């Protein structure tokens, strides 16, 4: 089980490490499913560069292609891999060290 999680989380973090891909994901989160042409119109990136990043993110399972209007492919954000990555972040963010220090301090006061 763990290697799958690790692989999924890694793909999410690799995708998010690139500013262009972050911009594309942010645009899909904000505006919903979009075509490469929609994204090229909205972002300061060439359509070719967008297509390359979209292909990578489809492979990673972060977005899925689906048929859109005028036979153009639309890309839809998939939340599942992000939620796996979020579990990784949650383990880092669950701040027991500071909480237990606060408990120690609370119990030290007479």
């Amino acid at each position, binding site marked *: *089980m*763990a*290697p*799958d*999680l*690790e692989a*999924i*989380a*890694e793909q999410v973090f690799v995708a998010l490490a690139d500013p262009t891909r972050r911009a594309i994901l942010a645009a899909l989160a904000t505006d919903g499913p979009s075509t490469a042409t929609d994204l090229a119109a909205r972002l300061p990136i060439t359509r070719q560069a967008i297509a390359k990043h979209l292909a990578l993110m489809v492979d990673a399972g972060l977005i899925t292609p689906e048929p859109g209007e005028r036979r153009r492919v639309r890309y839809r954000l*998939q*939340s*599942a*891999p992000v*939620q*796996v990555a*979020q*579990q*990784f972040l*949650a*383990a*880092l*963010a*669950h701040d*027991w*060290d500071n*909480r*237990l220090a*606060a*408990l*120690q*301090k*609370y*119990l*030290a006061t007479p």
Partner: protein
Amino acid sequence: MTSPFPDRIERTVKLARPPRDVWAALTTAEGLSAWFGEQATIDLRPGGAATMTFAGGMTVDMRVERVEEPAVFAYTWRLPDLPDDDPRRTYVEFTLEPDGNGTLLRVVETGFAQLPVETRRETYDSHCEGWTRELAELATHIDGS
């Protein structure tokens, strides 16, 4: 070079007070709001509901799981920032052990590495369908009025 996906957090601390004082700090609204959150409510029985409000106003729902005074207290709570209907919860268990005049307190939180990705996708898709339907109904409502 792969790192393991963290599923479990475990800490042990020595506290200067006996288990009964530590128990009160862990299981009463007054105790919890003094060190854990800004505000707390708790129905102290297995299955009982508890809430913790943190600085900034975020409130987390918790469910009491184990109440074995003064040795074991456990609850589950949701992973942060997941959708409201997400079933995933982590399990937090406190174990209190007398240690001289004080207490050895162990906290274990498990369940970070749950993976219902397939079910998540189903839920996500049903969400999308739900939204599409609701928006369609809204559109119909607006068009009809």
